[in-house]
Structure formats: structure tokens, C-alpha cells
């Protein structure tokens, strides 16, 4: 009794939390979104339209809210985009689930949902829904993406094989991205800036490595300057370090640099050793020796044409002086990130002062094009023209703005854009099982993923649930165990698949070949055709029974029945897998991938497409769980375009756009978008999976127990808080 009440309550509570968050984020979503002002505890102000930042700034205390925020931030860490959409989508999903439980009170509910609702109510186990959601996410979603949605995808690359990018399509992508991230005054300018930066930093052969480098060292690659208008922001060739020269000697021609990580000057004693001074003369000689030695090192560097010394530590006056005498510029106290960035760009290891001098060359020097001070708004910086040994051509972004909070927003948005591009340039593996059963005329998809990514989240989720201080969330032990078993089963599956895959030559499918799509669709719906001709999109399908193997871009492996039972036997916890065993049908494992650079036009196209195909899928499903989950997800998806089109009226309002899109899909015409701009499919897909995982986590929570830990606040503790 208690547990079921609490379980129902958890959806309701989560919905309440999510609705509050939705109200905040929906005001800054999309091109019409507005800014939010956050104040830091230090009194600084920060402007933001970044969902992740806003959620963190709220400092939520409610355990479910904190869990949601944790999910959002782990999603953001990976993709750099979609925090606001995350909340909106999650909220709509929760609303859908909540409606099911209330359906008995609501006579207007459609009959289909009502019966299911009663079923779920009877079960009174959100756990089942959560498992069904997980099943959907891990086994069905990929198939729908691959078999239905993929024909609508466009590629950002002008040539898919070489992954070359043309400026205009990158502009479309970035403009759409920045529309939702920076003030509407500046999004065009910032996206142009980013575009310039992108093309200036890239060599023709540089690939994803550059994104990784820029993403990792983004803080070091940009300089913020307050007090200037935003339009003064620019890109500077070379690396700008936020330090001034300790000593600067103008130099040109052949400039070499060295990096040091410790003081050049030898010291009396090193750590762990002892230096015994027996006489005054000894002291004087040692000091003299130190001086001579330092001078000799600097002279040696000078003789090797070294004109720049970069140090991660503070160098003594003596070193600075002799550097100046020998015409060597010195930059001190660099952060370890700055040093490692420089080392990565030029591939240079630190210089260690040699014990004995010879005339031989110092191995660890690098050539520098120039090194000079750069003055930005009366503050001095070090400007280095590094000669890159990797695919990244060093450039720095100078971000100007009237106040620091705005610069931070732009910095944040640019960083996020690089994260987004990093994801976009990766292939996304999709693999799933198709299973045909002619006996009862159903066909269902079982998809698992071999990337392993999707399994990380539940693990970290357990950690995050227990994290909130003062409030402890206790989960039902049983459920936890089941989830773990479930996970184990899936990891088995993953391994077996990976092993298998290595033996098979693998090719990336090209984009949207319509013929292939039709074959695929025919394949999956082969048996359906005869039984359910009433389906309105059925006429599209041709009675084409091509064998699987004819498609070059997909790989299929037929498993022996024995193997199937072997795997599914372990997974007896899964209701779906159990059925598999009973039916004893033949399975084929499909493994495909979404090539890098898949995009769709903005304005809710992805959501409407997925909504459409999910509804179709749901109609064909005979399993109530699947139908239910698909329906809920499909309906929740529409919440996002609804928010986006909120301010639009007439022809461009949401209902019109939706009807147009559905009509176009039914008549097999291309979709026309009213907005220009592109968005990454990978990002959307990852968002969807992250939200589903988050929802799964929310649903598995049975009871939330609040424990007041702080002993100093005993007098505040109410008796009802102790459960």
C-alpha cells in the first residue's frame, strides 16, 4: 500500500518539479528565447540562455530535481547541447504517464489509452513502464531511426567520404545553434566568428582531433576583454597567453623557444637533501657557482638561437636578468593547461638544464614565427606564432563585450558548439535484431547497441541518487538487483556482438538512398502487408521480397537458434526476452550506422518525423507495453515543436506546420521547412536516449526518505520528517 502510493507519487512529484523547470527554460528556448540573469554568490552577474547553467544556478534542493539536473549535466558534458529541450521533453513524457494513471477519472481519454491505463494501474508498477522504456530505448529506437528516419537525413558534408565541409552548410548549422544560445542581437555575429575560427584552424586533412583539442583547451584558446562592444570580437592568428612577458626582448628571424617546468637556476638543495655549510668561503663559492652556472645556461640557450623561454614556474630574478642580457624573452607562471596546450600544438617536451655543456644542440627547442606583446584594452598579453606540428593551426578568439557576464555566455556557447561539432563528426553505430515470425504475423525489432554508451548512465545514476546531502533516497533493493542483472545480460550481448563484428568487413552506408529504404521497410513489414492493408501508409510498400544480403551497406548475421536461447536464457528477468524463447523464431542481427554529419532542418522536423513513425510503429505493435510506450513518447515529442512555434501565428503556427508535415509524409513528398538552419541528428538522438534514461531512473524510485543529518539543526527537525 505504502509502496504503491509512493510510486505513484514519484511521477506526480517529478512532474511538478519538471513543470517548474519547464516554465523557466521554455522562456529561453529557440530563436525567440530570452535571456536569464543569474547572480553569483560573489555578486557578479551572468547572462545565460544555457539550460545547464540555469539549472545549476537554481541550486535545487528537491531530490528528484537534483537527479534531473544531474542527468542534464551528464548529457551536456557529452553533447554540449539540448538542456532546455531535455527538460521540456521530460516534462511532456511525465505528463503523458501521469495522464494514464488519471485516465479513469477522465472520460474524454481515448479508449485505447484507457484500457492500457487500467492495466498499468492494476499492475501498479512503474517499474514495468521503466523497463519498457528502457527496452524501447535500447531495442526499438535505433531501428526506427535507421529504417524510417534515415531517408530524411541530409549530410552536412559536401562530400561524405572525405568529410569536407562547405561554409554555407556550416553557417546554417551554427546559426541555428547560436540562435538558442546567445542573445538575438549577437547570434549572427557569433556564428560568423565561430565559422571563421573553424576554417582558420583547420587544415585540409584535420579531422575530429581538432575538435577534441579545441574542446579540451577552449579556456586557453580565448581571451575575454570587457568594456568593448561585442562587434569588436575577432580572431587572432597564433596563440594569445593571458600573461605578460617578465622580460621582453624584441627579436625577429629565426626564433626558437624552450619550455621549462622548474627553475633554471640551480638551488642550494633539492627536496629531500641536505646542504651543509661549513665556512663562509664555501657559501660564497656556492653562490658564485650558481651565478656562473645560470649565466652559462642562458648563454648556451642564446648560442642555440633560443629567444623565448616559457616557464610553468616563477623564475628567480637572476634567471630573468641573464635572460634579458642574452636577449631571451621570458614568460613565467603558465598554468599546466597552457603548457600542455603549447606542447600539444608544437610537440615539444620540456627542456632540462644539462649538467655539462657541450656545443651540441639542445634537442627540445621549437621554431616560432613570432613572439610579441599584444595590447588589448591597455592590458598586455603574450602573442605567440607557434608553428603547429599537428592538424590544428593555432588561432585565438578575442571575445569582447560590455560586461564579463556576456562574454562568459558567448564563451560558453562557442565551447558548446565545438562539443556539438565533435559529436556530429562521429559515426553513430546502430545495431538491432529483426525477428520475423510468420506464425502469428507479428514482427518486432530487438535492438541493442554496441557502443556501450547507453549503459553508463544507469551506473552513474545510482551514484547521483545517493549524493544529495541531507536527503537520502532509498531505492527498492529488489529493483536495483533486477536492473543490475538486466544490465549484465545486456553487456553479455554487447560483447558477443562486438566479437562477431570484428570478422565482418564493414562499410558505412551512404545517405538516404530511397531504394534501400524501401527494401528495409518491406523487410520488416513483410508479413504485415497482407494482414493490415488498411494502414494508410501501406500503399507505399512494394511487395518486394529481396533477400537481406543484397544490400551492401548493411551487415546481417543469422544466428543459430541455440545461440539465441543461450543469450536470452540469462535474461529471463526481461519479459520481452522470455517471449522470444517461446516463439522460437529466426533472428537476424542488423548492424548499421548513422554516418557522421547527419543533419535535419530546424524547427521540430526531427520530432515530427519521429512522432509520425512512432505512431505508425505503435499501430503495428501487438504488445501493449510497446504500444503504450511508443504512444507516450510520440506524443511527448510534439511538445518541443509546440514551444518553438508558440509565437508564430496563422500559416506558420504549430497545427498548420504539423498537418503539412504529416500530409507530406503520407503522400511521400519532401518535407518543406519554414525556417532555414540545420541541426545535428546525433545530438537529437543522444538527447532522446538521455531523457529516456533519466525517466527510467525517476520511475524506478519507490520511496524518497528525507534524512536530516546536520546535528546542529536538531531543534528544527519536525516529527513528520522522520517518516
Amino acid at each position: 500500500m505504502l509502496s504503491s502510493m509512493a510510486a505513484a507519487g514519484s511521477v506526480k512529484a517529478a512532474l511538478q518539479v519538471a513543470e517548474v523547470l519547464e516554465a523557466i527554460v521554455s522562456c529561453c528556448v529557440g530563436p525567440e528565447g530570452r535571456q536569464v540573469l543569474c547572480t553569483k554568490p560573489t555578486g557578479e552577474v551572468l547572462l545565460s540562455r544555457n539550460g545547464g547553467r540555469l539549472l545549476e544556478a537554481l541550486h535545487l534542493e528537491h531530490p528528484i530535481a537534483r537527479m534531473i539536473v544531474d542527468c542534464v549535466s551528464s548529457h551536456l558534458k557529452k553533447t554540449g547541447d539540448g538542456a532546455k529541450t531535455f527538460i521540456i521533453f521530460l516534462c511532456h513524457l511525465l505528463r503523458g504517464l501521469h495522464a494514464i494513471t488519471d485516465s479513469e477519472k477522465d472520460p474524454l481519454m481515448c479508449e485505447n489509452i484507457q484500457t492500457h491505463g487500467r492495466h498499468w494501474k492494476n499492475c501498479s508498477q512503474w517499474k514495468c513502464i521503466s523497463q519498457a522504456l528502457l527496452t524501447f530505448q535500447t531495442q526499438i529506437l535505433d531501428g526506427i531511426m535507421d529504417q524510417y528516419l534515415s531517408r530524411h537525413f541530409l549530410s552536412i558534408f559536401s562530400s561524405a567520404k572525405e568529410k569536407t565541409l562547405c561554409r554555407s552548410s556550416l553557417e546554417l548549422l551554427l546559426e541555428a545553434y547560436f540562435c538558442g544560445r546567445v542573445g538575438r542581437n549577437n547570434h549572427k555575429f557569433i556564428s560568423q566568428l565561430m565559422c571563421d575560427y573553424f576554417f582558420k584552424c583547420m587544415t585540409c586533412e584535420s579531422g575530429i582531433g581538432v575538435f577534441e583539442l579545441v574542446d579540451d583547451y577552449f579556456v586557453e584558446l580565448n581571451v575575454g576583454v570587457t568594456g568593448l562592444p561585442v562587434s569588436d570580437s575577432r580572431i587572432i592568428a597564433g596563440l594569445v597567453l593571458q600573461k605578460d612577458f617578465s622580460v621582453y626582448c624584441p627579436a625577429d628571424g629565426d626564433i626558437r623557444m624552450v619550455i621549462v617546468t622548474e627553475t633554471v637556476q640551480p638551488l642550494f638543495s633539492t627536496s629531500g637533501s641536505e646542504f651543509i655549510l661549513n665556512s663562509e668561503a664555501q657559501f660564497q663559492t656556492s653562490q658564485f657557482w650558481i651565478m656562473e652556472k645560470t649565466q652559462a645556461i642562458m648563454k648556451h640557450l642564446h648560442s642555440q638561437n633560443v629567444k623565448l623561454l616559457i616557464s610553468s614556474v616563477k623564475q628567480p630574478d637572476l634567471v630573468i636578468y641573464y635572460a634579458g642580457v642574452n636577449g631571451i624573452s621570458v614568460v613565467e607562471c603558465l598554468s599546466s593547461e597552457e603548457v600542455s596546450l603549447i606542447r600539444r600544438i608544437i610537440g615539444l617536451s620540456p627542456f632540462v638544464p644539462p649538467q655539462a655543456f657541450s656545443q651540441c644542440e639542445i634537442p627540445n627547442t621549437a621554431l616560432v614565427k613570432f613572439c610579441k606583446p599584444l595590447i588589448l584594452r591597455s592590458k598586455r598579453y603574450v602573442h605567440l606564432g607557434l608553428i603547429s606540428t599537428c592538424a590544428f593551426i593555432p588561432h585565438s578568439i578575442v571575445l569582447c563585450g560590455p560586461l564579463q557576464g556576456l562574454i562568459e555566455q558567448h564563451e560558453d556557447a562557442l565551447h558548446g558548439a565545438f562539443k556539438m561539432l565533435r559529436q556530429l563528426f562521429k559515426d553513430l553505430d546502430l545495431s538491432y535484431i529483426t525477428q520475423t515470425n510468420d506464425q502469428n504475423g507479428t514482427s518486432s525489432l530487438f535492438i541493442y547497441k554496441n557502443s556501450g554508451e547507453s549503459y553508463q548512465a544507469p551506473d552513474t545514476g545510482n551514484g547521483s541518487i545517493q549524493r544529495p546531502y541531507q536527503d537520502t533516497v532509498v531505492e527498492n533493493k529488489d529493483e536495483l538487483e533486477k536492473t543490475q542483472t538486466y544490465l549484465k545480460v545486456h553487456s553479455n550481448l554487447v560483447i558477443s556482438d562486438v566479437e562477431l563484428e570484428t570478422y565482418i568487413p564493414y562499410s558505412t552506408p551512404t545517405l538516404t538512398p530511397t531504394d534501400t529504404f524501401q527494401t528495409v521497410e518491406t523487410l520488416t513489414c513483410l508479413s504485415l502487408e497482407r494482414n493490415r492493408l488498411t494502414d494508410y501508409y501501406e500503399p507505399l510498400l512494394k511487395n518486394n521480397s529481396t533477400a537481406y544480403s543484397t544490400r551492401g551497406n548493411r551487415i546481417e548475421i543469422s544466428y543459430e537458434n541455440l545461440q539465441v536461447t543461450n543469450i536470452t536464457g540469462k535474461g529471463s528477468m526481461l519479459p520481452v526476452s522470455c517471449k522470444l524463447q517461446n516463439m522460437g523464431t529466426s533472428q537476424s542481427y542488423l548492424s548499421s550506422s548513422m554516418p557522421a554529419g547527419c543533419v535535419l532542418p530546424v524547427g521540430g522536423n526531427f520530432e515530427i518525423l519521429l512522432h509520425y513513425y512512432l505512431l505508425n510503429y505503435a499501430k503495428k505493435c501487438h504488445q501493449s507495453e510497446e504500444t503504450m510506450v511508443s504512444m507516450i513518447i510520440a506524443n511527448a515529442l510534439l511538445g518541443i515543436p509546440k514551444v518553438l512555434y508558440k509565437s508564430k501565428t496563422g500559416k506558420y503556427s504549430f497545427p498548420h506546420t504539423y498537418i503539412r508535415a504529416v500530409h507530406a509524409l503520407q503522400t511521400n513528398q519532401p518535407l518543406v521547412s519554414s525556417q532555414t538552419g540545420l541541426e545535428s541528428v546525433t545530438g537529437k538522438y543522444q538527447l532522446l536516449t538521455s531523457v529516456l534514461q533519466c525517466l527510467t531512473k525517476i520511475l524506478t524510485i519507490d520511496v524518497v526518505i528525507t534524512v536530516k543529518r546536520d546535528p546542529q539543526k536538531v531543534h528544527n527537525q519536525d516529527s513528520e520528517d522522520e517518516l
Partner: protein
Amino acid sequence: MSRLEAKKPSLCKSEPLTTERVRTTLSVFKRIVTSCYGPSGRLKQLHNGFGGYVCTTSQSSALLSHLLVTHPILKILTTSIQNHVSSFSDCGLFTAILCCNLIENVQRLDLTPTTVIRLNKHLLSLCISYLKSETCGCRIPVDFGSTQILLCFVRSVLTSKPACMLTRKETEHVSALILRAFLLTIPENAEGHIVLGKSLIVPLKGQRVIDSTVLPGILIEMSEVQLMRLLPIKKSTALKVALFCTTLSGDISDTGEGTVVVSYGVSLENAALDQLLNLGRQLISDHVDLVLCQKVIHPSLKQFLNMHRIIAIDRIGVTLMEPLTKMTGTQPIGSLGSISPNSYGSVKDVCTAKFGSKHFFHLIPNEATICSLLLCNRNDTAWDELKLTCQTALHVLQLTLKEPWALLGGGCTETHLAAYIRHKTHNDPESILKDDECTQTELQLIAEAFCSALESVVGSLEHDGGEILTDMKYGHLWSVQADSPCVANWPDLLSQCGCGLYNSQEELNWSFLRSTRRPFVPQTCLPHEAVGSASNLTLDCLTAKLSGLQVAVETANLILDLSYVIEDKN
């Protein structure tokens, strides 16, 4: 039981601009800044309730740095103004008033923030491109060959800061000093890349302003006793200077991370002193005349040097190190032994000087790009204000050197610009709107809000109940004193426009700034002879004003775009 309500330690408010509290806060702030604006602006006295420093000012930089702002929206406003002022020194109040006016005017209109922001941006770029164009009727070229226009510049800055408490004569004197100080920082043989020198402001409080002066080189303050002890040097050639950045006190500095064990009876102090005296011997053999040290010189070494007729001055401090390095051409020495002969620099001469009650050691350079501006004023607060004003004036001159144009001051640029925008939006709205989704009516509304915001900035130049008029030919500003007869003969009442370029003897039509006028084309393309003849113009810095305009509009746009305020209450 699970808790059903979300608890938020951060305070989250929606639509912050609509609340009464914000409106009041903004209007209070606006009242403060408008009352400070211009030559007749009212002064503000700032002090905290616990006593201590009192600041009397009408400058934005001093005002804002002393005001404690807690409201987040006001904080945006003050921070962006402070950032603007720290980069351009000038036009802080202009920016603040314009920004407040824009927010206030727009709030009265019932338009969506998107439209407002988009149109504000269009109008801003219209202003900027006009002010930068050749046809602009409110900017004049600055000729660095003649001091006339440069003096006008400095004088405009000085007169707009009434808290300096200067008389007319004093203003003239200080203007001339500032200009001289600026000209001294320009290197004589400048080729290609010019590196400006530095004017150091030396405080001399309690003296008459008229005693202020400019000297080439650096003044080091010293007590009279110290100064008497220094022996006069008689030398016809330049003096050799050694500048130390390391300590000469005989400390044993960094010995490493391990331990140093000193045996009984070993005196490191003696050893260190020996080393210092060796250094002294080297300096003597190198014929050094003057030893300067950033930190402390050991008394024994000092005496040793003095015995050998070397002047030793220590505790220079880090601020003087850079100008000293630049002026003497030395390399700051960080070593106690083996000094490279290239590290020494030189000065032309040294002397002692006494100004007021203070004694100085004066280093006279060979080539002067470093100068000292001895600034006097009667009391502390007035001195502080004067110092800030001098820095502003010097900065304005530097900015003008980079971009040799000046805007007409005294409010004429603002009224002219407003007239230009009105005309442009009425006669050629299509070119502004282009492919935008906004309608012409929306443009008219926003343009009116924008222009009246500009005009009320100059409206706040008048604090004594006078009236402000504008002419219908040039679009300049004319002010008429309070309690003058109503509809009188305008040309007799008005003598000169705000900037001083035109006088009332021309055939002009005037109208009150507050009244509505039919849009007219203000005369563009300033004739050259008009500029040449005028001797006493009020001028504004183009760079600073342009940036102020941009910052004001950008900040107003930012504030108007806010939909939520999340206040971290930690």
C-alpha cells in the same frame, strides 16, 4: 513520504522589468546620473555611515566605484558603464543616461522585446555608420599641428567636471599643462610604430592649482634629510645609472626545497655583506654614478657607495620601475655579481627640487618621453577629482591620436543625430527595415523612443530651469536661461549653440526640444571654413562617444531581453 514541493534556495523572478521595485531603482539611478551631467551638473558627496573617506564628485567613474549596487539589473548597467569608462575614460554619464532613457522609453511602448531589440540594433548601426561617414555633419578633423583644437578638447573635459573646483584662469593653466604633458610623451623621431611614453602624476595637495607644473623626467620623493645627505655631482657628461630589481640588503633568498645546515661559527651575514661590497667595487670600477634599487640597499653598501661619490637611492617601488627602465634605457639587474656592461643606462642630469613642502630628487632624461605632472589642488577631494580629470583628458588625447576626429560637444551631436534619424526613418524606412519582419509603424515608434532618449540626454545638461531649443537647419542645441521673457526675439536671447560653432545671427528657425517637430534634414558635410574660424569649441572624443553609444544600446537591449532573474542567495 516524498516531498511534493520544489524548494529553491536561489530566488527566481520572472519578467523582472515589470516589477515596481525595478522601476523605482532604475529611476533613482537615473536621477543620480542625470543630475551630475554637464558643466553645471550637481555634485554628489559619497561617504559611508561609519565615517572615513568622503568623496565629492560628479564623474561616473568615481560615482560608480563608490556606489554599492545590489540589484542585479542595476548591476548589469553599472558594470557595463564601469567597463566602458575603464577602457575609454570619457562619456560614462552619457552612456548611463542614454541607457536608462532607452529602457524607460521602450517600456512605455507595447512591443515585444524581439522587435524592440532588432530595431534598436538597426538604429544603432545607422548612427554608427553616419558618425563614421564622410558626410557626417557633427564631426571635425583634428589637426595635431595646431594646439588650438587640442586645447579645446582638454578644456571641454575640464569644464565638464565641476567638482575640480577650478576658476576660469586655473582651467586655462591646467589645460595647457595637460597638453604639454601629453606632447612630451610623444617620441620625437617617430617612425612606423609609435610607442607613447608616460605622464606620471605627482600629488601635491594643499597648494594653489596655479602652482601645478610639468617637468620632463621622473621625480622621486625624498625626505629633506635624505636629500641633504646626497652629494652633488658635478659632471659634464651624462650620468651612468644602474637599476636593481633584486634586493641589495644581503638576504639569503631561495635556497631550494631541501634543508641548509649552517655550521656553528659561520656567519652568513658577513658572507653576504662581503658579496655586496664586491658588487659595490664592481660598480665603482664600472664608473657608475647613480645606483637605484627597487627594494632595500644594505646601509653598509649605501655608505660604501656614498664614500665613492655614487648616489644610492633605494625603495623605489615597483610602480616607478617601468618608467625608470624606459627613461634610462637600463636593464633591471637581478644579479649580485658579474653585471653585463649593457645593463647600465644613463640620465642627462640629476638635481634636487622643492615643491611646496615636498622634496624631490629629479632625474632629467636625455630624450624625454617620460614626464611628471605635478598636480596641485586645495584639498584632498578636489585633488582626487582633478587627478581623475587629468587622466581622462590625457586618455582622450591618446584616443584622438589614434583616430584624429572630434565630435561637436555641448549636446549638439546628440540633437543633430536625433534629427538625422527622424529624417531617415520617415523618408527612407525601407532601407532600414530591409528584409526584416518588423513593420514601418513599429520602426516609427522605436525611432521616436530612440531619438527622444538621445534628446533627453542633452536635456539633462540644463539644471537651472532653463529651456533647450534646437534649430531647424543644423539640428544643433541652443540653451536659453531661465526666467527669460517667453516669446521673445530668439536671436537676441541665444548667443551661441552648445558646441560654439554657430551663432544666432544667422537666419535660423528654433523650436523647443520637447515639442514635436516635423522631420527635417540636418545639414550634413561640415564646411571647412566654419571649423577654422571658431576658436572656442566644445568637443567630444569620437572613439569614446561611439563606444558609449554602442554600450548604452547593447546594455539596454540586454536588460530588455531579460525574462528571469535567478539570484543566488548563498
